């Protein structure tokens, strides 16, 4: 180890506050970025799942067991 004691390691000959401020900020931002990105993907998965479940609910259980996609003709009034 480059330091004689743990106290010397923390104080870094007076440069401790600068060094530790950088390291704490760096890791807080990095971990936040990682957690935020992970949560965004989980939320996107959840949102897709809810959408598909809603679609299935609208079609009814019988429809969901059959074809996975259906098309319905929409007639638009010409009046």
């Amino acid at each position, binding site marked *: 180890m480059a330091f004689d004691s743990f106290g010397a390691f923390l104080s870094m000959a007076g440069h401790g506050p*600068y060094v530790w401020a*950088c390291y704490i900020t760096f890791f807080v931002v*990095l971990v936040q970025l990682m957690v935020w990105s992970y949560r*965004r993907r989980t939320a*996107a998965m959840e949102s897709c799942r809810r959408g*598909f479940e809603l679609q299935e609910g609208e079609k009814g259980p019988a429809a969901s067991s059959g074809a996975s996609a259906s098309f319905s003709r929409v007639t638009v009034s010409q009046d």
Partner: protein
Amino acid sequence: MWQFFHKLGSPKWFYGIAARFMPWLLAGGILLLMSGVIWGLAFAPKDYLQGDSYRIIFIHVPAAFLAQSAYMMMAAAGLVTLVWRMKLADVFVRAVAPVGFMFTFLSLFTGAVWGKPTWGTWWVWDARLTSMLILLFLYGGVIALGKAISDEKSSARAVAVLVLVGVVNIPIIKYSVEWWNTLHQPATFKLTEKPSMPAEMWVPLLLSVLGLYLLFGWIACLRMQTEILFRERRTRWVRDMVMADRS
């Protein structure tokens, strides 16, 4: 080669391949970054000129490398978007811009804090620092422009053009320490030369640089997957994957 290029254009293929690589990127990234940081903080020798404040280098340089590399990667993806209209390239730009923004912020912040004990000031308007600040604004501009245009195709083109215009800033950042008189020290690593610092200093630095690159890869894959899920939310493969995941 062309087959790989075509595959790369498929969001479904990318989603699957990213999922396979991501655990390795995360584990390797954490391992390398932590080894580099612990080695640099506690075991690397003191710098004869700057004392212990130089230990900030083990996070400052990786953050600055990533800030510039991420922009270069975005520029390459921007070119692909304009020439081949590949959707995945635009997905990459959208996913990486906020990450690049955060790394640029970290590089500026750690640089400013390192500047105080070394130069006696937090900030100077010299070429290296100012061009890095411009990079931060460019990232901000890319994020804002992407959100401002609702049409997906127009938005992709506009973002790609902005990214390509902004790439002129990258050589300015790199060569600013040679072209102008700046307080900032010259490049730590050069591909053509052996580092001027001893191995006990540059090996941990190299470890933390590699570690952060791997973590960047993990974050980029994760964010690209999110963007793909959003864009492909009505497709059958997303439906099959999401519903299979449920059971």
